[in-house]
Structures are given as C-alpha cells and as structure tokens.
C-alpha cells in the first residue's frame, strides 16, 4: 500500500498529506465505491485511517484530537447551526474548523442562505437530504422519506439545489434504494448513502454501529451492519477496571501497599534531628 497519500495544502494553507482531494473524489464518481464513517474519538479516527476508510466525519467536540489521530484522511466536520444566528457568525466557526484542518463541512440542516454564503469561500461542503434528524418533524418523524413519488421529487429537487450552490456531495438518509439509484445517475455530485441502498457513490455508517455499541441510539438501526460487539468489550473492560481498584483497596487495607520499593526514607541522623526540632514547637 505505497503512495496511499498525496501531498496537499489544507484549506488553511497547511502542507500535509491526504488520501483524497475533493477533485479526486468527484473524479471517482461512478468508478469506485467509497466509504465514510462518523467517528467520535481519536481511537476510532485512527482505526478508520489504518483500515483505509476513505472519509471520516465528526462533530466539533473533539475535532482537534481527531484530526491529529487521522491526519491523512479526508475529514468533514458538521457544526451545528443553532449556536449561530447569522451567516457571518456561522462562518466564524467554520473558519476555526478550517484552521484545525477540516477538508470539508457538513451543512446538515443549515439555512440555505448560510450554505450559499459558505460556498462563496470555495470551502467544500456536503449537504443532507431525506431523513434529516433535525428536520424530521417536517417529514413525519424517524421513518423513511421518498416512498411516494412526490417525496422522491422533493428529494431530487433538494439535491439539485445543493448541486447548484456548489456542494461536492450529499448525504441521503433512509431513502428507497431505487430512488437513490435513479438520482445518483442524474447528479454530478457524490451521493452518500446511509440506509439508502447500494447505489450511493459512498456508503456511510456510524463508527458506533459498525463496532456495535450504543451511545446515540438505543439499538443498532436497521440499515446498519454490526461487525463487532463493543458493548460487550466495554463491559469486560469495566470489569477489569473494577478488579484493579478492588485489588488496590485490599492492598491498602492489608498494608501491602505501599511497600519498601514505593517509598523514600530520611536517614536516621536527619530523622532524630527532626524529632528534636518539632518537640520544642
């Protein structure tokens, strides 16, 4: 696996190495099935990079650590719009993310005018259509979107709008496979499927669901595939932690810790001198 990374400048002019530029990704449309994973920790990010996952995406919480853990993987970050009441303030946060080293922004459920403003800076971004959790009250809750042709048309129009504004990709969530199949052929931007079938240019899953642990959802969603049982691994790990702390507690109570090799001693002469000194206090 030589020459996996190419030399690039990041959006904030840092020289570095990446697996893809945005142009590479666009050129690969229709030629290569790619993968994207949502990661929430440096450990997941680093594992994704080692495993050769094509793209990772994360929130703003641990971005810096995650960028450092996977410095060579195309990284998208999704800042929440609710902390920013104007497009200028929104951009201020985007610039901070760019400085940390993101390669692309996830615009999720932003105001369309904010997205247009972002595009004026030529900062690569991906949008989000179909079941968009933060907008799901408009589509009737947590359920598929696009089973009616009228809904499918709406999704198509949303994607075309994003394409016009200059998105490089769009996450398509819980849309019928055949619908995304048709749309993928009719758009130049990359379609990222989560629960929307195999015709997406990119398959997207949460690290959490691949690994099989549950933080954000009560159970692994139907569209996901679980490759391990990290709930169980975490449980085992916790048992080892408890055991370690119990052994320590026992050692202290039984005066087995600290032992001679854990301590320092004052010489006899100094000790006697000290005893005399404090006697008079």
């Amino acid at each position, binding site marked *: 696996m030589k020459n996996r990374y190419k030399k690039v400048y990041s959006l904030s002019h840092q020289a570095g190495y990446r697996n893809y530029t945005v142009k590479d990704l666009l050129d690969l449309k229709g030629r290569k099935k790619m993968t994207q994973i949502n990661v929430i920790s440096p450990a997941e990010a680093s594992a994704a990079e080692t495993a050769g996952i094509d793209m990772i995406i994360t929130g703003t919480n641990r971005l810096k650590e995650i960028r450092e853990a996977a410095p060579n993987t195309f990284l998208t970050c999704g800042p929440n719009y609710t902390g920013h009441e104007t497009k200028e303030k929104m951009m201020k946060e985007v610039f901070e993310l760019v400085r940390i080293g993101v390669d692309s922004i996830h615009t999720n459920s932003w105001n369309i005018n904010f997205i247009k403003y972002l595009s004026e800076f030529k900062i690569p971004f991906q949008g989000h259509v179909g079941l968009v959790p933060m907008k799901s009250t408009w589509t009737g809750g947590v359920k598929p979107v696009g089973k009616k042709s009228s809904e499918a048309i709406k999704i198509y129009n949303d994607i075309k709008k994003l394409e016009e504004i200059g998105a490089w990709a769009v996450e398509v969530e819980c849309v019928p496979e055949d619908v995304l199949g*048709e749309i993928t052929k009719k758009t130049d931007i990359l379609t990222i499927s989560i629960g929307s079938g195999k015709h997406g240019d990119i398959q997207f899953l949460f690290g959490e669901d691949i690994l099989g642990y549950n933080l954000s959802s009560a159970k692994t969603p139907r569209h996901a595939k679980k490759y391990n049982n990290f709930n169980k691994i975490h449980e085992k790990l916790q048992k080892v932690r408890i055991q370690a702390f119990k052994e320590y*507690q026992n050692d202290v109570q039984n005066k087995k810790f600290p032992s001679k090799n854990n*301590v320092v001693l004052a010489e006899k002469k100094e000790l006697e001198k000290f005893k005399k000194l404090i006697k008079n206090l």
Partner: protein
Amino acid sequence: MKKKYKRVFSINNDLGYRNYTVRDIIQLKGKKKLTQVRVTNAEEAAAAEEAGIDLLLTGPGPEFSKIRKAAAKTFMTVGVPFIQNPSKREATKKAFEVIEAGADSLMCQNWNLDWMKHLSKFRIPFQSHVGFIPRRTTWIGGIRSFGKKANEALELFKDIKDIEETGAWGIEVELVPENILDIITKRTSLVTISIGSGISADAQFLFAEDILGQSKIEFPRHAKKYKNFNKILEDIQKERILAFKQYKKDVQKNKYPTKKHVISIDKIELNNFRKFLKKN
C-alpha cells in the same frame, strides 16, 4: 461485600447518599486506612465506586458532571485551579460553581493560605497539598522527594500546621520520606493523604491511570500497576481496525448494503418518479 451508604445533604442541598461525610473521614483518622483515586472519566469513577474506593479526586472540567453521576455515592473532591482564578473572589466563585455541580470537597492546590481561610468561613470542606508540588518544583530544584533533611522536614511540618489552621480537613503529601510523614501524621489533626509518602499516612492516593497501567509517561516509582491497560487498549484498537476493514471490504465487494438494510418503493411510485426525471 455489601456497601453501606448514608443519607446526606450535599453542600448544594441535594438529598442523596454518600459513603462518608467529612466528619466520618476525620473521625476515621488513625482507625482505618482509606484510599483515594484520581479519576478522569466516568468509567473510572463508576469502577472506583463499585470497587469500594473510599474517596475520589477529579478536575472541574467538562467531564465532571458525568463523573459525579457515575459515582454518585462516593465522597468526591474536585480541584479548583488557582491560575485561571486569580483573586480570592474569583477562586471562591469557581469553588461555588464546583459545589453547585455536586462536589463534596475541594482541592485547593497551590492556593494562597488567605483564600483557604476565606473558603473555610463558608464551612466548605477542602484539602490541600504539600511536599513535592509539581507547579512549585522550581523552588526545590526539580523533581525530587521533599523532606529528607531535618530542616526541610521542619518546613513541611510548618506548612501542614499552617494549612491545618486554615480549616482544611485533609492534606495530600507527595514524595515525602515515610518515616517523616509517620511522625507528622501523629502531630496533625489533618487527614494525611500519601502519594509516594509511605504507609503511615491516613489515606493512600494514586492516579487511576497508574493503577490501570494506562499512563503515557514513564511509570512513577511510588505507584503500583495492577493491570496493563495500555496493552488491553491496543488489542481493542486492533478490533476496531478489523471491523472498519471488514466494512470497507463489504462495500467494495457489494456485500453491504443488502436487501435487509434498505428501503423499497412501490412500483407505481417509482415509475412516476422515473417519468418526472425523464422530463427534467
């Protein structure tokens, strides 16, 4: 091993359960060896409570509320950094914040004595720190034990007495000769908490990361490693990598997603949609 928790009001007036009140801890001086562990996340805190660790210490960072919830019944001391709170007023303000978040006691490391006296007027329990103090290393000439010479031991004793006078309940004593702390422990009403200062202290204190063997720095001589978490975490990371590799392979070989992962659409609706696309 059934643990007994007693009903208490926390300092911020929440009704709950705790293993100790500060009075219990003070009364156990000389009667029972206690343990204190410094935790940095909710998993460590929960494990410590489950293991029956007596006291917990942690920082006031964003993890604190999760840590408090994870070990809701263990006497918990929280550090209030002086450097971000450069006046008595600001330090007290931060102390109140930490108490509102559920601390049972504060760690006033490097605090000005006068600030501690002020805090004590609110009857807020706190512990402090003497001996080798990382931030004050420059005064003792580097990272070394403190109190091997009689005059240093005397200085240490006076420091402890000064802190006793402020109204503290406990004192972390770091890297002090065992036979010196032995003498001092008997001459102070403070609960002495040893880290690297020997067996005679009232309580033993270690970092969770050292107990677990998860430290990224060289392992300190005073600590005891009960597990090799660095190795365990490496193995888990291998599992992560493997899972992600399998996912990638599945996608490349069209093995994921399959029928059971996708949503289907009615033929009529699909045809309507196709007709629309043809026109656009």
